[in-house]
């Protein structure tokens, strides 16, 4: 098992490296932070920016190097640097906002905010996908099945941002109507709240409800289809028919024989729902005013902050890969036919 995990992780490293190369090229080509910064300086002072300042900015942001060299420095930090770059040395590179801003501490702080949302939303959507998928399969071609299928299609067609705005406004209306503060629709926690990890978590719960519901409902539908198909396949298999023929009660057949096997494909859901929730968090955080990674990436993109965008790409990539790893391991736990040599 341990050997298997290590091997899986080793396979993932080139994929992650490839992803950073590709993302770096795309972001680097489409961004010019030097020009952006020069433009900012120019509009704030009103004067022409002298060439020496431009050179200083270029060297500060490593834009006096070629792109491959910049990538190398970003990744390893080996070479002629100012000591603020090099992923392997724990540095994410200089931010466009100057040396006062440290990307790694920013990202570290915001990571937990986003992770909270992503994990809750993933678990919720997997749960509801299993539930609706199984019910749909058991009551195949009934009214329940058709309506669940229709709701699923509707959820699949629903743009996350539109639904998020709708739910946010609805929560505001409910709050107004009940004169309470049940749902919090702005921010990820009470401003300036201090306390232990658990207290912070409890404090953040009212802020979590609406965003989690939104991500859950826009993300569960395709998984529910998988679950339905898996359950149907199992229900039509010989051993389930045999169990019925032996006279086992219907409930027992469903629970003991069918559902157990039909839950195996759930393992494929995990990375799917994680990537979906990661993508959705960008939109959700923007709408609900969370200061998480998603909002961070958007700010970085708008500011043309290459290294900050790369930090987001890296973290999001790691989250997805961890999801894939977990799903591989889950397969082994759930399906006794799979052996790890």
């Amino acid at each position, binding site marked *: 098992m341990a050997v298997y995990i290590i091997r899986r992780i080793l396979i993932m490293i080139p994929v992650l490296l490839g992803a950073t190369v590709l*993302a770096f090229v795309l972001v680097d080509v489409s961004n010019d932070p030097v020009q952006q910064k020069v433009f900012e300086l120019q509009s704030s002072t009103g004067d022409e920016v002298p060439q020496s300042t431009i050179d200083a900015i270029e060297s500060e942001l490593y834009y006096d190097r070629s792109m491959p060299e910049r990538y190398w420095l970003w990744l390893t930090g080996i070479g002629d640097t100012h000591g603020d770059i090099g992923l392997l040395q724990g540095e994410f590179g200089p931010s466009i906002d100057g040396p006062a801003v440290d990307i790694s501490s920013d990202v570290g702080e915001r990571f937990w905010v986003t992770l909270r949302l992503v994990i809750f939303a993933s678990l919720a959507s997997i749960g509801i996908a299993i539930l609706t998928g199984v019910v749909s399969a058991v009551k195949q071609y009934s009214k329940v099945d058709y309506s669940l299928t229709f709701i699923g299609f509707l959820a699949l*067609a*629903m*743009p*996350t941002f539109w639904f998020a705005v709708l739910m946010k406004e609805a929560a505001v209306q409910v709050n107004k109507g009940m004169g309470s503060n049940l749902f919090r629709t702005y921010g990820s926690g009470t401003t300036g709240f201090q306390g232990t990890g658990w207290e912070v978590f409890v404090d953040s719960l009212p802020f979590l409800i609406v965003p989690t519901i939104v991500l859950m409902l826009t993300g569960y539908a395709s998984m529910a289809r998988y679950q339905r198909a898996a359950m149907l396949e199992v229900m039509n298999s010989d051993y389930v028919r045999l169990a019925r023929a032996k006279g086992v009660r219907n409930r027992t057949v469903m629970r003991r024989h069918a559902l157990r096997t039909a839950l195996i494909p759930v393992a494929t859901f995990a990375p799917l729902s994680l990537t979906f929730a990661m*993508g959705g968090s960008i939109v959700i955080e923007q709408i609900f005013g969370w200061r998480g990674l998603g909002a961070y990436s958007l700010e970085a993109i*708008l500011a043309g902050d290459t290294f900050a965008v790369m930090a987001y790409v890296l973290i999001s990539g790691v989250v997805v890969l961890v999801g894939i790893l977990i799903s591989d391991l889950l397969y082994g736990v759930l399906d006794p036919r799979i052996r790890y040599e």
Partner: protein
Amino acid sequence: MSKLTPAASLEAEAITSKERGQWALIARRFFRHRMAVASLIVFVLIVAFAFIGPLLWTWDYKIHPEIPPRVSPSLDHPFGTDQAGRDMLGAAMRATAQSLKVAFVVALGSTVIGAIVGAVAGYFRGWVDAVIMRITDILFVIPFLAIAAAIAGAIGTGTRWYHMAFILAIFGWLNTARAVRAEVLSLREKEFIEAARAAGGSSWHIITKHLIPNTTSVIIVSATLQIAFAILAESTLSFLGLGIQSPDTSLGLLIQAAQGFAFNEFWYLFYIPGAMVILIALTVNFVGDGLRDAMDPRQTMVRR
């Protein structure tokens, strides 16, 4: 009582059912799928609304000084007008057209790329397959929305619909390629491919003349799903301000402008563009579902 002539009675007894080609069968099966047919009709109506509508309707999507701002839906302005004095029916037509243009180009582009890449990977196997599949793995790991936003943000104020189509097509071909590859992997072992190879057919000939035509069903279904993907992605990027830029408009931009209006007197500004996005994605998904059922060779003509 007139008796039939022998010839006529023979004719009456003959089997009269016509021979049906594959496409006729698929069409028949598709038209049995009520939801899919209804969706197809709605989708065609939306396309007509977007592209023919502007030719018939008085106002376009631009701001006109003669249009009074903040007017509720009326005969003059069926969808009302916004704060700036834009006729929302004209704006909705234009926005839908822009979003649909992106969607069609993405569907076409990513389907062509995906079909060729998937077929090549599945046919050649070996290192070609390994490289292509690793690339799809890599693209799966990259946060799509962030990178698409970064590229779109770089184009900045000049973003047009074809820029959006290009950006989305970069990521769109993945699923098509995977589906086509899976299909080709089993097809390439079939006798007719072996026969084509024995007859001296080149790889390119086999891929384009034998493999891709035999994966048509997969390709068509994934093309419809691409439309839904592109509509949702494009409107999301536009909503974030990184897609199509004003003065042009798109469904995402219209929703962004109406963000706070869901429960006040301007509700129609929020719900109409939202309903448009949902309707397009929903109908396209249903059509895709119907096509998948119709093209599935295991499917019987009987609906259980």
